């Protein structure tokens, strides 16, 4: 049976009608029209649908929408502040951290979850942090560079405050 649930996505509240088996990914893409989060394997293998829920990076395809009720959810659409891009977004553009761009939203959210925990990760920690995210285009080198660059900018920002 369908039921109405409350979701909080990118600091906005939504009431949506969902079926019990519907994933958070389905709801974001098909009911809320937030297609930034990508559907790729639908089995939790590729990381393209990574969003941040309750501070942790999760595969939205493996989370039931009903489980996400009451959680703070952040998707790629909520990463920028108004027209100001997040340092990770700036760094991905500056360092060429994407090509086709299909893994990029998930990659950005995994990277954000990583940097939220540890603003000064080692290269190995970055590699581990995005090892749930497949990329067929870049060979990961420039993604790792982008995350390093963003971390450095964010640390600079913290020390300026």
């Amino acid at each position: 049976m369908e039921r109405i649930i409350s979701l909080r996505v990118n600091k906005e509240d939504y009431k949506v009608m969902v079926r019990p088996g519907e994933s958070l990914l389905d709801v974001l893409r098909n009911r809320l029209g937030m297609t930034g989060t990508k559907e790729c394997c639908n089995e939790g293998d590729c990381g393209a649908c990574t969003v941040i829920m309750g501070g942790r990076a999760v595969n939205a395809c493996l989370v039931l929408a009903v489980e996400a009720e009451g959680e703070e959810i952040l998707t790629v659409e909520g990463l920028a502040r108004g027209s100001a891009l997040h340092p990770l977004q700036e760094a991905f553009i500056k360092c060429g951290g994407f090509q086709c761009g299909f893994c990029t939203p998930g990659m950005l959210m995994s990277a954000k979850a990583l940097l939220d925990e540890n603003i000064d990760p080692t290269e190995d920690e970055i590699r581990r942090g995005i090892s749930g995210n497949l990329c067929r285009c870049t060979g990961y080198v420039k993604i790792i560079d982008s995350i390093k660059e963003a971390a450095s900018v964010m640390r600079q920002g913290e020390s300026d405050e």
Partner: protein
Amino acid sequence: MSKSNYSVIGKRVGNVDGVEKVTGGAKYTVDMVLPNMLHGKILRSPHPHARILNIDTRRAEQLPGVKIVLTAKDTLGRKNGIWRNFRDLCDEEILCREKVRYVGDAVAALAATDLETAEKALDLIDVEYELLPAAFDPLDALHDGMPHIHEDFERNMNVYRQIEWGDVEEAFSQCDHIREDTFYCSSQAHGCLEPHCALASFSHDGKLTVWTSTQSAYYTQLLLSDMTGLREGDIKVIKPHVGGGFGSKLSLDSAQYCAALLSMKLTRPVKIVLTRAEEFGATKRRTAIHYKVKLGAMKDGTLVARKVQAITEGGAYTAMGGTALYLTGFFSSFPYKFDHYQYDGFRVYTNNETASACRGFGAPQANFVSESQIDMMAEDLGIDPIELRIKNAITPNHEIPGQATIRSCELRQCLEAIDKWIKERGPLPPNHGIGVSAYGFMSGGIFNWIDTPYAFSSALVKINVDGKVDLFIGANEIGQGSNTTLSMICAEELGVRLEDITLHTGDTSVCPVDLGAWGSRQTLMSGNAVKMAALEAKKQLLEVAFHTLKPNVVYDLDIKDRRVHLAERPRRGISYFDVVKDAIRGKEGQAIIGRGHYTPHGKGMISPAYSFGVQAVEVKVDRQTGKVELKKIVTAHECGQVINPIGLEGQVEGASVMAAGWALTEELKSRNGKILNGDFRDYKMLLAEDVPEMILIEVDSYEPEGPYGAKEAGEGLTVPGAGAIANAVYNAVGVRITQMPLSAEKILQALEEKKRTQKEVDPFEAVA
């Protein structure tokens, strides 16, 4: 013009699609929704080879929400293929009429109001099959008495290609040393993250619009026209952002065709997105190839002759497999000068998923084989493998009889750069090894399979009154960065800034024809078209500026960074914006328009230009498990003038990792034609943790045929990886793997085998 004089090209600029792609704003076909849209699904054969006796769609049609179920009887009965000049090689019905030829062949397509209903309805279609004997191994399928997969092809022989120059048999008789080896190259899944998908909308006025994830909107338009009977001009193909192609999105696919067909019957929008299992099992893949290679050399290391025989595993249909067959033959001679060369290639139908184009297009397979054997030959002759390569390397202006003339080529410098790096690296820890492979690759194919009378690439530049420039191109951005590269070329040629360019692309109804993204063609071919269009527009501005600046006739005018000035006296100039306004006034208010096109002429059979390079890979092999760990990948390469450095580096890095995955872990396993590891859990593409330090050494070169001297950079680096890794494994632990992939299991087995044979030899050595 010297490099430092460029104001846009060669600069590290952000990708022009960057903001859209990092904010989630970039729309891909999978994201598209239209009002009143239906969801389509395709029923696929569970059998590798079977006759279709009957298809009963009634139960599915009765399911509430199902709008229509189509089978072959609802089609025009045409067969699809990209070699439109060779109708017998157009062999794919897409919706099968009499037979299915692989597990995944499409037998019916349906549309329903929602996806769940569509999926449910698939189970309600009753297909009665008569199972036929099948052939899975091309070496078996070639024999008499094996099942006929396509009736008109004796012994399942699909395509035969020969390449020959000199006289190999005579030459072998003169050689000091000859090696003959066999090799096997495995297949590879393209692994695009965005699946094949299409949204088709047929309107009551008889026009079809298809949004789709394609490498060539133009090919999709033509092939849909072939299959539906609609005129080309009544089909509009729109290519939004594309989530990867790698060769898989070049032929007409089942999602595109079935969505179009369903929409035409219903006059409603229909969307089909393939599942990940369909991606692995029912699209296309890299061609697996068996090789027998004979190589003859003199004691001093001069390579004299090579004879290559290849049997390629074609799968169920031709697709673009004939080109992979040809190119693997051509590139098996690369990158060396052979006076005598012979290639005989056979493409064999089997009851497996079709093998077709995949990044590198036959060249990675050729390179694994030939570069493994070069190292084996060097060891036989007691010559340093890099020295052997330098001695035989292709040099500029080298002619390959009947095939190609290679103009720019700095392979020797690349080899020397890698040699220097290896020497500086010094002694390696135990079980580490460095392997080297040299390669070359084409800058676009001189192949007009599709039989178009249009130029291979075209562009249109329109300068508006505010100085903004509309650039219309048919070139296909699929992630490789062509939107940025081509915008940069346009800005450089016109003398404006990158932000002055507004790109219009990915819509066949608006953009001039371009053959699309394949064969590393767009920088050179589309780049030349854009440069020509920009120059034509620029000349119109300069004519107007000439009247204002009134220079002595011996001076030329130029535009740089939005300023029109005397080329030799840059301080004497006027604003670009003022000149644009004057020029438009002078044309009775019409915008300035420049048109450009490019088709290679007089450039041989293969490509107008070739890039070269050398890759060294350092590995560590675990003797207990056989596992190969990548430690470093060092690439010295030349690709002419670099237009877009960030894009170039990304291509090199991404291609290198795709090649390493193919060599080591990406094995498509199948039993009786069914893919066993058709998901990202069991099909192992490399992860960020697997990727080693990468070092790029750019070697300068200039290609006269390319825009500003640029040439290929998109696929070349998928070519050397497997050979370099095989050579590195040999240098690390002394086992030569000739059958891909270089799995841990295979290496462990070889290590154990080596230990066993060494033990047997030892007592005799002790006696001696």
